[in-house]
């Protein structure tokens, strides 16, 4: 795209759209920008190379070389670690480029894991996999800040998630509370990223990975009362949606809005599940709950509510956008559901319908085809779900589908026409 612009510069100068001076400046600007790119590519390949070499090392050491003496094995355990440390020390002391920092840091990360694993092998230390992961991650956390390394921050997040899943889901009975500590350790780095480069690629990667990691791990915290999983997830998605509406995230492109997209999509999927009566029959059967799970749900709710209030104070919330309040409504419904399973089912269905119409309205107002069709998809999915558990005749079901289908065509067509008329107005 840049080269296209540069190619068109002479034409623009010829037709007196811009002056020669401006054309020169534009060219210079893109050239200086281009000189950054190969460097970034080099960093990516450096990191990939380090990951491959590091993982390869771990695999080679995992062969368990029986024929070597204990001393030689021990030397092997420390060699990659010390090489990695020397490389990282060199990058810091000589103030090497970001490429150096990232690549050497990633290598050291895997060398630490390899050396602990190797010592475990030599002495047949049974220690659990999760403890091993935890020690490994913690030993490398400071490197994120010392090297200002994005790759290490990503590895930290990914491995912390693996840790939480292994600890929580595999064991079943214990919640991985230390995962929260690992996340807290990463938070300052993430906040600096948001503040210093809100629109950079790396920041948007975190905008997606962080909520995804939380979505994956949240279930591991609910160990005793499975019914609370539903409630905690709906609140989590509400939190994500409202976080996504914060000024720092709201001005980004759609593909950078991880929180908003995941929050909105997750809410809709959960509501669709909750539009079936059996979900509420399960809730109805709950006799009591207590303990850490409830605390977790309350904390989540308070945080989500806090973000919502902040949005109102900053006048960022759209008063009639139902997505903001879904988590509050669903929490109330959950408690109603403890006494009664019919009204929550009906209300959930109505909520979905309103959400769909809401999205269509936002889509029309903002002339956004994506949001418009998102609303239509919500309504279609709702109708589709009701096909499973209602005794409507096939004729009525068929008619409903035809009506929604026509709705798709007409709304899109009207929007397209509107947009065209607007464009022609601008051109005139």
């Amino acid at each position, binding site marked *: 795209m840049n080269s296209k612009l540069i190619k068109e510069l002479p034409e623009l100068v010829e037709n007196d759209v811009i002056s020669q001076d401006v054309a020169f400046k534009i060219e210079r600007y893109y050239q200086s920008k281009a000189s950054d790119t190969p460097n970034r590519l080099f960093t990516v390949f450096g990191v990939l190379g380090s990951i491959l070499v590091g993982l390869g090392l771990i695999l080679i050491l*995992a062969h368990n070389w029986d024929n070597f003496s204990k001393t030689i094995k021990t030397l092997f355990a420390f060699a990659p670690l010390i090489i990695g440390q020397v490389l990282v020390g060199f990058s810091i002391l000589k103030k090497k480029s970001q490429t150096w920092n990232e690549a050497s840091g990633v290598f050291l990360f895997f060398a630490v894991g390899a050396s602990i694993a190797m010592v475990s092998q030599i002495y047949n230390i049974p220690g659990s996999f999760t403890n091993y992961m935890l020690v490994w991650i913690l*030993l*490398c956390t400071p490197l994120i800040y010392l090297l200002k390394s994005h790759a290490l921050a990503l590895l930290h997040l990914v491995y912390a998630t693996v840790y939480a899943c292994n600890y929580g889901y595999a064991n079943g009975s214990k919640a991985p509370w230390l995962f929260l500590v690992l996340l807290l350790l990463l938070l300052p780095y993430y906040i600096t990223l948001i503040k210093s480069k809100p629109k950079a690629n790396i920041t948007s990667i975190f905008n997606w990975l962080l909520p995804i990691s939380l979505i994956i791990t949240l279930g591991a915290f609910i160990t005793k009362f499975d019914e609370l999983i539903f409630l905690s997830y709906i609140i989590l998605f509400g939190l994500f949606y409202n976080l996504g509406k914060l000024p720092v995230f709201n001005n980004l492109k759609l593909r950078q809005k991880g929180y908003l997209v995941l929050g909105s999509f997750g809410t809709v999927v959960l509501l669709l599940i909750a539009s079936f009566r059996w979900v509420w029959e399960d809730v109805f059967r709950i006799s009591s709950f207590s303990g850490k799970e409830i605390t977790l749900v309350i904390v989540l709710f308070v945080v989500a509510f806090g973000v919502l209030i902040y949005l109102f104070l900053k006048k960022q919330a759209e008063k009639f956008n139902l997505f903001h309040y879904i988590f509050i409504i669903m929490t109330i419904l959950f408690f109603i559901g403890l006494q009664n399973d019919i009204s929550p089912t009906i209300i959930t269905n109505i909520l979905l319908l309103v959400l769909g119409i809401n999205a269509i309205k936002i889509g029309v107002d903002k002339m956004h085809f994506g949001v418009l069709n998102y609303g239509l998809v919500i309504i279609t999915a709702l109708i589709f779900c009701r096909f499973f558990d209602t005794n409507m005749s096939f004729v009525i079901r068929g008619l409903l589908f035809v009506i929604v289908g026509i709705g798709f065509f007409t709304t899109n067509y009207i929007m397209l026409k509107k947009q065209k008329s607007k464009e022609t107005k601008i051109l005139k």
Partner: protein
Amino acid sequence: MKLKYIFTLFILVVIAQLFVPMQMIFGQEAVLNNGKAYKFRTQPVDPSDPYRGKYITLRYDINAAVSVDSTWERKQDIYVYFEEDSLGFAKLTEVSKAPLVNAKDYVKTQVNWYNKYDSNVTFNLPFNRFYMEENKAKPAEDAFRIAQRDTLPNNTYALVYVKDGEAVLKDVIINEISIADYVEEK
């Protein structure tokens, strides 16, 4: 000035990264050098670990104890005490919830479950993982099964050093030969 600061912090990280594996080594070496060697009768089976390579899991004959105390809970700490029998193998003497004041050797592990009907508390001894070269782990399991078919009673045991509740698995022996060599010979 800032570089100095960062580098000092880095050196601290380096020390921590070196300290963890070294401390593991020293702890294990101390047990191997000063601990008492026990033979635990065992059976090997063959799983794997994505990071640390192939190992054989050892299923020990000592895996349960009679206990009148019925308040055992899953994953609770349990202290397993043992002594040497006349054949030189480890023999379970008692289990307890807290360390006992006696001179006997013990290891600390976790309760699997408590069976109320026969008042039995079951557990796995913690040194149940023996790392082997990747192409030897499976043959080792097979070798054990073949060795069991001969007339001798269970002739497979783990050589474990124990000191102050710490245990280090040194080797697994089949018919008085180290399992790694035994597999190679076959």
